[in-house]
């Protein structure tokens, strides 16, 4: 017994905390729980790091990524973040995927007074109700992505809507925002059915049947990943989508769209990332560099990972230092170039104005693609500042 403990302790004591002249980004994410999104994400990050270091680093210092798996649970993630802070002495925390993990790490960042750049979690609460001084979020939030779909939904003038979403915070707030925004824009709209299957466990046949029984003119869905695939296949077989307009958050992202292949439903309105067709100079540069480096095409995750690292570098450049309080000041109102164009980090709620592409799904050579797409600039899909101030309680 004694020897066992001794071995344990000696292993514990092996630590590495040599201070050096590099800038350390402590990145934690659920790499093994959401690999479909996060493997491209990691490639995006590494591309950005290499580009930055090849051009001399930041303020003459090399940029180092210290990447950790957060195990996918808030409890483990907080411990991993503590490790990055206490042992690795990172300058900035970055990452997280699921909303509960993002909120937990953001909460720790406020306690330990360190900047946390939340790259991926979508929950509105991260920058509103639970927003804090040290947390900044890159991706367009659930609210923003819903708001991006609203103009098209209003144009169709459909009266009877059915809603389906995974039963957790992202789905719930997507559904709530959609109902609120559509009712405001189109008074008299009716919501005739609402289905909230458990995440990852949709009973697609029964759900499709129940939605069809309500005879909706249009459907709003926040499903993604395996739930979306099951829903699409059942809906196709059972003819749910014939003559019904469908709006689906995130379904245009390659991570989810590419798995649908020849099942891709025609004409759905989605948010996503038509990587092969965006030919702005900044995106073309990114795409070519990514394909050259990885011999693979970029996914949504690649753009997020790439931009997150670039954002940290830009903030440190602007601050002239990696010291926390100066970084916070620098990030507020920071504007930077991204593969999606110029983005501003809003001082009011620390949300970046990175947008998403809104368009329709179509099939091309047995693959799903986005057509009729346009870029929806995140700056245009925000509630009034007054509302945000109320939510942030600052």
């Amino acid at each position, binding site marked *: 017994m004694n020897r066992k403990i001794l071995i344990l302790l000696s292993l514990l004591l092996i630590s590495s905390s040599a201070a050096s002249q590099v800038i350390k980004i402590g990145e934690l994410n659920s790499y093994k729980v959401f690999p479909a999104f996060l493997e491209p994400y990691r490639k995006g990050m590494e591309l950005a790091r290499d580009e930055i270091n090849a051009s001399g680093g930041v303020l003459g210092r090399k940029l180092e990524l210290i990447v950790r*798996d957060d195990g996918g649970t808030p409890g483990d993630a907080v411990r991993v973040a503590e490790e990055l802070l*206490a042992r690795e002495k990172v300058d900035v925390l970055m990452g997280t995927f699921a909303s509960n993990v993002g*909120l937990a790490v953001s909460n720790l960042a406020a306690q330990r007074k360190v900047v946390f750049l939340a790259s991926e979690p979508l929950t509105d609460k991260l920058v509103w109700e639970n927003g804090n001084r040290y947390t900044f979020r890159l991706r367009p939030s659930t609210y923003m992505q819903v708001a991006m779909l609203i103009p098209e939904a209003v144009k169709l003038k459909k009266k009877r809507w059915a809603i389906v979403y995974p039963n957790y915070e992202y789905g719930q707030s997507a559904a709530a925002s959609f109902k609120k925004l559509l009712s405001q824009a189109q008074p008299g709209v009716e919501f005739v059915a609402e289905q909230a*299957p458990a995440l*990852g466990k949709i009973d697609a046949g029964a759900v499709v049947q129940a939605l069809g029984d309500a005879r909706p003119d249009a459907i709003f869905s926040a499903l993604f990943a395996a739930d979306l695939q099951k829903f699409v*296949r059942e809906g196709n*077989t059972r003819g749910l989508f014939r003559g019904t307009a469908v709006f689906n958050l995130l379904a245009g992202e390659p991570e989810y769209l590419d798995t649908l292949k020849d099942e891709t439903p025609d004409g759905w309105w989605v948010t996503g990332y038509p990587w092969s067709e965006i030919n702005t100079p900044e995106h073309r540069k990114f795409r070519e560099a990514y394909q050259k480096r990885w011999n693979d095409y970029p996914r949504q995750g690649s753009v997020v990972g790439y931009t997150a690292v670039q954002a940290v570098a830009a903030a440190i450049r602007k601050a002239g230092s990696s010291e926390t309080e100066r970084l916070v000041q620098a990030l507020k109102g920071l504007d930077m170039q991204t593969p999606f164009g110029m983005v501003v980090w809003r001082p009011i709620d620390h949300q970046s104005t990175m947008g998403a592409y809104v368009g329709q799904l179509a099939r091309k050579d047995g693959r799903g693609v986005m057509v009729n797409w346009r870029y929806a600039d995140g700056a245009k899909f925000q509630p009034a500042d007054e509302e945000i101030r109320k939510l942030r309680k600052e």
Partner: protein
Amino acid sequence: MSSSAVLLQLLNGLAGASSLFLVAAGLSLIFGVSRIVNFAHGSLYMLGMYAAVWLAGRIGFWAAVPLAALAVGALGACIEMLLLRRIYRAPELLQLLATFALVLLVRDFALWAWGPEDLLGPRAPGFAGAVEIAGHAFPQYDLLLIVVGPLVLAALHLILTRTRWGVLVRAATQDREMAGALGVNQRWLFTGVFTLGAALAGLGGALAIPREPASLAVDLALISDAFVVVVVGGLGSITGAFVAALLIAVIKAFCIGLGYSKLTLVVEFVVMAVVLVLRPWGLLGRPQAEVRGTWTDAPLARLSRRGATAVGILVIVLAALPAVPDQYLLVLLTDMLVFALFAASLHLLMGPGGMASFGHAAYFGLGAYAAALLFLLLHWPMPASLLAGSLAAAAGAAVFGWFCVRLSGVYLAMLTLAFAQIAWSIVFQWDAVTGGSNGLVGIWPQQWLSSRAAYYYLSLSVCGIVIVALWRIAHSPFGYALRGSRDSPLRAEAIGIDVRAMQWSGFIIAGLAAGLAGGLFAFSKGSISPETLSVQRSVDGLVMVLLGGVHTLTGPVWGAAGFTWLQDFMARSVEYWRAALGAAILVLVFARWRFSA
């Protein structure tokens, strides 16, 4: 709902029941004969899916289905012969630990072999379209599935009643020592049953690919459903599994049809709780035959003088640790201490109490949430919140335990799981109070406790004192009464011990301690979310106790520390860290039980 809608939802339910049944039947067979709670059954199903999608792209769907089933069956045979066969005689539940390790290995294997993206399989040729039923389009493939379930049931029934092998399987299910005494070669019987069970899981997975994509999250999503079906039907009863699958799938379909889709989160566990309370052995199950002579519990040894000295020295070392420059050590040790307390509380139930709980996280989570809510909403000070939190957990344990002590063995374990899942779903759904799936944030201790070292000392003293108290309880008159109730309920009652009251008190004390651990956890992380009372957390607790050894006094504490450290270390240093963790657990299992077969 219109009558045609009712008909269609009924058909949906039937189709769902068939796929559920295929998995549950295999699980039930394996448990019936070998008494192994096969955690890896969902992983076998997942492998069936991946194998079928992969094969279907090469040799077509219909050839891929049987081939995938055969391949998974063959893998099952290997697992049985190379792994499980060596530990049948180990203390019960050590096999569970081995299958848990397999889950970790298989998932990372699938990620490595087939990549991170979900794979949507082809539609089944010949059954790709829909037929019109009562004015609605209904998938042809679902009709096929509706037929497959009863066909497999009939086939299994024939095998079990009409073949010699089936008779032996039934004999072993009823009394495996007697079957052995009559000269039945148990080795091959066990191998055969495990192979058949695995093949059924593989078949279930292969048949599912026209309806759902092969994805890495399937294993755990499925295994709890399958367990529920097996237990509701009655362990070892194939017909029971079929009835239970029908019941649950149809109820789910109607929840969705009637617009109560949110209930699907928990409805199967509600069904299981109700069934177990009313029928302690499931719908068609029979009381479990006692397993004789495999293993008898040596009495729990007291802490020896040397052991006590070692623990004393350890405490002094731990108290001196904040002097070390690496502050992360304190964070990690705080986690270890919290989980050590959690494991020690579970151990009181599993060791001296003889009651395996698959839902111990419920009390951990209740303690965490109660403490957090009192702290955030009523602004109670931290110590009062912690105390009240653990009392709330004890109250929860009192309610759940009251029902659970009326059962025994795996049924008891599954009822604890059902209650834990119900508690989890309430926390998950009750947005206004618990913050729903996002949870609660801003749960930080007062200024003077907020440094890592201060909080570490708090955890060290609280966990240390309570763990020692739990150790002492094991050798108090109450602890002896608990142990007596475990080893021989009849004799215990004969000498005047109220067995159920003892077991119930065991639940309450364990709940109290687990709740305290939960509260400490909440204040150390600053936030909590429903994962604190998820199945995963319960399973982690089980793994910690089993790693350390159920029938040792201090083992679970080392188990908790070791597991937490391993997880932390592997996640940081190894790319496929879950597989590495699984491999490490397997090594430990075998180290604990040196190739005995």
